[in-house]
């Protein structure tokens, strides 16, 4: 069985999400990596070094810049003539493109795969992770997105795959990239950070959110996350959101501060190795999943914690 993996990259380097996706794909068969983009020769070379990748297909053309689904999906769909499965990371990048590929080849996608039980059977979370379904696909070909925190990252070195050019197709002409407002941060990325400090609505304002959490995060070398309530209130940008519909994270240590623990939030972080909760309400549901809890006023605790660490 040959598996086409859609490589997520930013034009400069390959994203960690790709490495976990390769691990998942390798459980199905021989991994062929699709690198689509503009001037992505170096990305193709890097993909060839990923351990477990047998072949790299590079689709390089100006119209493949910015990962527009309308243009990338047909490139992948055409390559599916020679592949049995298509696997993409369940990131906003993969979620945007994979279902479009699936529909083009008339396959029902299996979203957010947690484990590969056999070549046609997978587990995936439903109902915000409150239930885990085992599903068997009866389609001849498979299309999956994988939850990247559920798979180890394949080593980014050690491989020596062959590289070939793939048909880059043409500009679909229906969509165009306008702009990207990137969140600039010196901190680690949320989805790959070892430690995350995450804040909720209890911070009361954007100023206090940052004044209290940023120094703590800096001290811990941590990424900063937020609950939906904090993002909705404008304390933190959208890409900080951890939860059912935001980012799924599983760091070594997740420190939830002023977060009550709605099921939608828990869905995004309950696979963290150790969960620490700081909340003034000792009945808050977050304490039911926390390994270490501290009940008290975050406005006193957080500065003291930052100082003493």
């Amino acid at each position, binding site marked *: 069985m040959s598996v086409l993996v859609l490589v997520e990259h930013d034009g400069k380097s390959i994203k960690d999400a790709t490495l976990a996706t390769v691990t998942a794909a390798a459980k199905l068969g021989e991994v062929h990596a699709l690198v689509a983009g503009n001037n992505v020769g170096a990305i193709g070379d890097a993909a060839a070094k990923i351990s477990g990748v047998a072949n790299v297909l590079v689709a390089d053309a100006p119209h493949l810049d910015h990962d527009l689904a309308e243009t990338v*999906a047909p490139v992948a769909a055409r390559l599916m003539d020679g592949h049995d499965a298509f696997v993409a990371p369940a990131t906003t990048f993969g979620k945007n493109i994979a279902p*479009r590929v699936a529909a083009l080849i008339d396959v029902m996608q299996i979203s957010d795969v947690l484990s590969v039980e056999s070549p046609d059977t997978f587990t995936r979370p439903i109902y915000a992770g409150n239930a*885990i*379904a085992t*599903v068997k696909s009866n389609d001849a070909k498979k299309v999956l997105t994988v939850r990247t925190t559920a798979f180890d990252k394949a080593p980014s070195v050690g491989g020596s795959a062959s590289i070939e050019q793939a048909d880059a197709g043409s500009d679909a002409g229906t*969509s165009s990239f306008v702009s990207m*407002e990137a969140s600039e941060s010196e901190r680690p990325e949320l989805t790959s950070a070892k430690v995350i400090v995450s804040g909720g609505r209890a911070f009361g304002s954007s100023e206090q959110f940052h004044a209290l959490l940023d120094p703590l995060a800096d001290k811990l070398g941590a990424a900063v996350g937020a609950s939906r309530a904090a993002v909705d209130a404008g304390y933190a940008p959208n890409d900080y959101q951890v939860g059912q519909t935001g980012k799924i994270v599983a760091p070594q240590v997740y420190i939830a501060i002023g977060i009550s623990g709605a099921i939608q939030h828990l869905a995004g972080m*309950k696979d963290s190795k150790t969960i620490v909760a700081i909340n003034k309400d000792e009945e808050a549901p977050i304490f039911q999943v*926390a390994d270490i809890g501290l009940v008290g006023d975050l406005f006193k605790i957080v500065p003291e914690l930052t100082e003493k660490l």
Partner: protein
Amino acid sequence: MKILVAVKRVIDFNVKPRVKMDGSGVDLANVKMSMNPFDEIAVEEAIRLKEKGLATEIVAVSIGPAKAQETLRTALAMGADRAILVQTDEEVEPLAVAKIFAKISAEEQPQMVILGKQAIDDDNNATGQMLAALLGWPQGTFASKVEAGGDAVTVTREVDGGLETVELKLPAVVTTDLRLNEPRYASLPNIMKAKSKPLATKSPGDYGVDVARRLETLRVVEPAKRQAGIKVGSVDELVERLHGLGIAK
């Protein structure tokens, strides 16, 4: 411009889902059901486009059991003009839903189809993208801002690295993210008025779409439970524990 909005009847987002003892699924008997929250945002966005004079008619469509009529009535009470229920007691997968929507789109000729980015029951996040693929239309997924004008729509998308803005030629598919808008509550007079708005009932067969499942659910189980841990009494103790975990040493 005519807009089609998709609405799904799902478990209310405040209800904690319970897995059935026999492992066949989640128990939905006597559970409060509501419109999928992302679909409420889709309906609201369509109404706002109509209020701005950019849309002329809003057609709400649901695929589901007879009770999905209630969900459609909610959409009508919010401000949709008419509704179509494609009635079936089967659980219809995103690919089949997208095929039915593609057929309805061919009939209705909307300039835009707005859907929630995912339903909070199966969490697939696939229908909008699949519909766009089947129609050959561009897609603006995970939208936090929609600006329509002329023959294009500009969509700002919530992506992992921040906010991305794309321009799509109409007709287009848009899927909503949480911060696109805050849906309105239907007023009592509007709820009354919605009762007399047209609601057509169809079947998947009317559209020639086979809704047989491609994915077979073998079993559904509860996730491994985390045990509640310990509570510490002071910041000093917390610091000690964190050092014990090997961080910030």
